């Protein structure tokens, strides 16, 4: 039977992925887009239903 990933590990993986994309976008010179990537994703954890 497949074991499900613990929520904390899953969240850490997701956060790592978002940070990696954000850093890559900033490295290629798109710093505002990188900022909004972080806001759009991390903002979701702050209870926004909008």
């Amino acid at each position, binding site marked *: 039977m497949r074991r499900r990933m613990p929520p904390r590990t899953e969240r850490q993986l997701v956060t790592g992925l978002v940070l990696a*994309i954000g850093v890559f976008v900033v490295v290629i*010179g798109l710093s505002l887009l990188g900022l*909004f*990537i972080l806001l*759009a994703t991390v903002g979701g954890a702050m*209870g926004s*239903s*909008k």
Partner: protein
Amino acid sequence: MIGTLRVYWLLLRPALLIPLAMFAALGAAAAGHPEELSPLLRALLVVAGFLVAAVAVNDLSDEAVDRINLPDDTRRPLISGAGTRPQMLAAAVLGAGLALGAAAMIGPACLALVVAGLVLATVYSLAPFRLAKRGVVAPLLLPLGFVGVPFGCGLLAAGAPVHGWQLGLLGGLYLGFVGRILLKDFRDVRGDALLGKRTFLVRRGRAATCALSAACWLAGSLALLAVPGLRPDVVVGYLTLTGLALVLLRRLAGSTAPRSDEALILAIATVGRGLVLLLLAQFTLTGRMIDGAQSLVVVTGCTVAIGFVAISIARHGPRLHHLTVPGERISSTSRAFTPRKRSFTLPD
């Protein structure tokens, strides 16, 4: 004065400020100025004033219903006791003044737009109009201000002429936001029903609300067709996330638990912000002439990241603050572990 400024700060809710800032950035990007700080900052100044004015007026008129729906919300000064009604009123006036002043610096068209937005925010919340209580009218009108004002300010702050396709894009963003704002009423259904606030959800129930939201999502996604020079990777990402939103909406239509409702609605909102992000990526990548592998990594990465975040939130809910339970209550009574009943049964 310090109290008013503190209330002003509390009313700048990240949950609203972030989507509105993204619409402003998208407006500036659609005008051909992605990655330029100056037009974005001028638009954000307007947005910061407009948002506080609209939220303060709404909080003043919804105090009774918020006491039932959101008794623990620390960002509602009237409920948490962090602010008084006169301070809220002063913050609303300050916000409106800031928005009008910053809009006047952008130009007369922007000033007219913000005046219209402030009038809409007022009739939405205050008697005798009180549009917030009028069923489907409320979610149809509110996004006009929350999407139209920031997008329009970004567009006008960039100083480029307005084209028809930009208005088409605005229409799509508006419909998509209607699809999301319809779901906000799930959180508030208990107090709304008790105090006679006849929202669409209270009137028509869960299934109809989810169906209308899905229709708005689909209609809103047509906005993509308005954008010139669409990148294939953006189209694939956009359709993937729209599909994920529809799956989550279907699960919400069949959900029976308030906790699950909350998680699904937050996940759907995250997907909505992801779609705006992909549109922003479309303009930024095109404007900076970034093609090939780098573009693919950015767009695919954004799509995958947003999808993973949304699925994770749908599964586990938002990240919770750690709670400390005093030891003596654990041993002396089991009342500390009795959950408060916050569920409300909706018609199917």
